[in-house]
């Protein structure tokens, strides 16, 4: 899909899955707004990192996101007590499994931050954005679209 876009025009598309709970103050929200200034960054708030089905991440990659960043609370300060302990295990294993299969390191990333308003969130998102930019457009796991795809997928 991105093949005809020249490298210089290209900017990565990044999905940020952000836990809703550490966002208390105006300055927290300002941080979220700041991340949205980065082109093609989409921030999706979730009620807890524990809500994230690993399939969300695979779907995001399949739909052509160049990076996926999950930002949650540190496990011990989860609003729901255990949500992040469980998601920590699941998401880290998924990330490491994808990298085991050859997915670029850090295309999928998990971070826990306690206080977004201290500039942490936008810095983190920017960092992730710059990190995935170096890989160029994502190819692995991207769904082939019919506009360019074949009429039948099977080698018969």
């Amino acid at each position, binding site marked *: 899909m991105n093949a005809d876009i020249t490298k210089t025009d290209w900017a990565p598309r990044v999905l940020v899955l952000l836990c809703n709970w550490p966002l208390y103050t105006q300055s927290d929200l300002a941080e979220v707004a700041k991340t949205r200034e980065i082109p093609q960054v989409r921030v999706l708030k979730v009620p807890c990192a524990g809500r994230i089905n690993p399939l969300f991440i695979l779907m995001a990659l399949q739909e052509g996101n160049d990076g996926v960043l999950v930002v949650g609370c540190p496990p011990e300060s989860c609003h729901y007590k255990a949500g992040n302990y469980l998601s920590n295990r699941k998401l880290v294993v998924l990330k490491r499994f994808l990298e085991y299969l050859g997915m670029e390191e850090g295309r999928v990333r998990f971070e826990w931050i306690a206080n977004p308003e201290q500039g942490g969130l936008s810095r983190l998102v920017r960092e992730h954005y710059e990190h995935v930019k170096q890989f160029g457009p994502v190819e692995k796991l991207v769904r082939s*679209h*019919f*506009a360019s795809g074949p*009429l*039948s*997928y*099977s*080698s*018969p």
Partner: protein
Amino acid sequence: MKKIAKADMGRFIARLLEQYMVYAPVQVDDAIQFQEITTPSEAYLDYQNSTKSPKGVFLPQSEVLFRYNKGPKQVTVTPPEEIKKERVLLGVRGCDVRATLLLDAIFNTPVNPDVYYEEKRGKTIIIGLACSEPPSLCFCTSVGGTPFDRKGSDLFLIDISDAYLVDVLTDKGEKLLDDTLFRDATAADLELARKREAEALEQMPPPLEVKQLKDKLDGMVESPLWGTLAERCLRCGICAYLCPSCYCFDIVDEDYGSSGERVRNWDACMFSLYSLETSGHNPRPTGSERWRQRLMHKFNYAIGQCGDALCVGCGRCVQGCPVNIDIRKIVTDVMAS
């Protein structure tokens, strides 16, 4: 009768490739499957049996029926473009060609013909390949075929050591021949081919007793056999997907927001989703009903539907079943019951 030296096959395939899209058996790691080739050397004709049957040439596992675009209060529907390049299906066993003839009866119907199948079928020339070394688990002679079954092929190749004898069966086949590569076969060639045919037939196991199978199954709507089979069956789709004559399919929309495609995919009667209804009711809720369906469809209903059993004895389901459910044994058990 013509013949072509094996050494010339590469040149023959190269010539085919100039004009046709060529599907041939290709060894991909440890599997042999029919796929489009771009160079003659990809074709692997010394195979015994392909892992997957060539049915996908006519009925691809996933095939776009049409594409749609959605706008506000409007939709456009675009069917796929017509196939421009004719195809050659090279090196197919007689059993697989026979399966194609059975599928013709399902898809090329006078009313509501399946236009997708029909087009691909009509634009494909079939070069059959005699089965000189039938695998031991094959049973084509039990279900009306032979290792040298020529029916349905346009050209039919018989391995005679350093050459293939070429049986020219249709005009479609004849137009592929040319004088530089194909010569008239000699009496000795014909004799050798006959010998090969006799040897191959001799290698076949004694045919299973299937004449009364349909009648027998008529009385088995309720039978403990179905439960016994279901008990061991994993309910995967291996047998159906490897089978050259299983053709069931599912139709789904793959949506991309404002546009998408309607796709048909192979389906299998062993899957629960195959018959599960929206209400949650499944008319074939367990493996027993699904096994009854599988066996009945192949050896009973199919007789009325396409004139013959939907089994060509290729042995792929026997080879592929992870728990060794063996159709030969099932048929024997049914007949003995």
